[in-house]
């Protein structure tokens, strides 16, 4: 009967591990074992959920979320477009791969000033976010598009299908799971990009909270901002995993 309540040993271990982690944190923070910079979990949670600060945090989340989503969409669209173009015109492949790798290698902090000049101050976080999203989606989709087996491609060729037709009817459906996978993986990058982008003059956002808290030694604010970022990450991660399972079932 016990095995019905606790179906999975791993599940128990997992809960155990997480709980121990939180208890550990609480103890270290409460007794200031790691100095002033590590507050107890309860202190941070109190600060985070203080009704007086609701507005502040909601505004911050809203701003960062908006930037991250815009960057996410922009980067994903460009990535999808480029990967599709390469599939239809294979001669582009080498240069395209190299281009994407180089763009991705530009340090995010260097992207800030560049986007400040190209677009405006408010859109910079989205811009920085879009770069890494672009790379991840491009690589994932490229990989997915080329995953149709040789036999399938030969079949389409024999039927006289053009490369474009083959792209829509064969490569694209095959790549659906990989695209969703790539989208899922790129959300954390979008979030980080947005946060870094905010350091270059945005009005509000989690990145701003972090910089302010850091410069003004507001420890609880700093930790709250970190928790907010983590929650945004996890929430989206959960949503995308669900989405991914759906696509795998439909397309394979």
């Amino acid at each position, binding site marked *: 009967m016990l095995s019905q309540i606790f179906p999975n040993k*791993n599940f128990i271990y*997992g809960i155990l*591990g*997480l709980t121990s982690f939180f208890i550990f944190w609480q103890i270290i923070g409460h007794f200031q074992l790691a100095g002033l910079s590590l507050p107890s979990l309860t202190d941070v949670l109190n600060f985070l959920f203080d009704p007086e600060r609701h507005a502040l945090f909601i505004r911050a989340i809203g701003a960062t979320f908006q930037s991250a989503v815009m960057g996410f969409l922009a980067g994903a669209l460009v990535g999808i477009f480029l990967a599709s173009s390469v599939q239809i015109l294979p001669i582009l492949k080498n*240069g395209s791969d190299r281009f994407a790798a180089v763009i991705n*290698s*530009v340090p995010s902090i260097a992207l800030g000033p560049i986007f400040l000049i190209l677009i405006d101050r408010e859109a910079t976080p989205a811009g920085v976010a879009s770069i890494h999203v672009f790379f991840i989606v491009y690589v994932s989709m490229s990989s997915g598009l080329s995953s149709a087996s040789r036999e399938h491609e030969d079949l389409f060729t024999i039927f006289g299908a053009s490369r474009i037709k083959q792209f829509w009817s064969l490569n694209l459906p095959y790549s659906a799971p990989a695209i969703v996978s790539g989208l899922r993986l790129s959300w*954390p990058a979008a979030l980080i990009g947005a946060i870094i982008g905010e350091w270059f003059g945005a009005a509000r956002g989690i990145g701003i909270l972090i910089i302010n808290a850091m410069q003004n030694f507001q420890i609880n604010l700093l930790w709250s901002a970190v928790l907010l970022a983590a929650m945004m*990450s996890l929430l989206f991660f959960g949503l995308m995993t669900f989405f991914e399972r759906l696509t795998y079932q439909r397309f394979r």
Partner: protein
Amino acid sequence: MENKIHKNRIISFINLNWGIILILILWEFWVVVNDFNPIVMPSPEGVLLDLIQNPIIYIENSAVTFSIAVVGLFGGMLIGTTLAIMTWFSPLLSGLINPTAVLLSSVPVVSLIPIIARILGYNMATEIILVVIITFFPSFVFTTAGLRALPPGSQDLFTSLGASRISTLKKLALPAAFPNLAIALRLAAAHAILAAMIAEFLMGTNGLGYLFAVTKQEFLTERAFGTSVIATVISVIAFLASSHFENNVKKRFT
């Protein structure tokens, strides 16, 4: 004959780098058309000139950033791999650690930088530790997966041959995990350099990140761009080198 070889080389260079060439052309065009003050937006040749005329500053700071990245990368991969091996031995440990590790990995790394800097101090050791933290996770995840990606039937083979657990680790699981480890290295290498720079940018000690912050502040924009260019070049080289390594490992171990 020689001309033909030359022509082929030029063609394959363009085939590979047209994207970058395009960016450079657009950049030059953008600067010329808008007639930007170099303080606002430098031209490609302005940046190149600064790079050539001031090699020492660039080299010194690059060396710092590079060392931090490399040491941190090595440490992170070592810890990640060791932990993965430990969880391979002990399902209990594996169950305990995994959810917590996933939770911790969802925290955007950049937000951890100020916290850890506060706790451990604003110095190079902290920067290295930050790189370790960033590179730890990919190597842990990929090694864990790799240790379990055994050739079909090989675990049964080892069991029926009476192999000890340690033998199975050394002779089966670890070699099976190498290709995955190489992938982790490729991912972690890119992150390591980025992390080192961001840490330096925020904590202001030295290195390319610090140089970038300072020159940006002092409106030495050409130098700031030069820093970015150098950092990009280092990252690309690291990416190419680790991709090459990864391909070799794949050939050798699969």
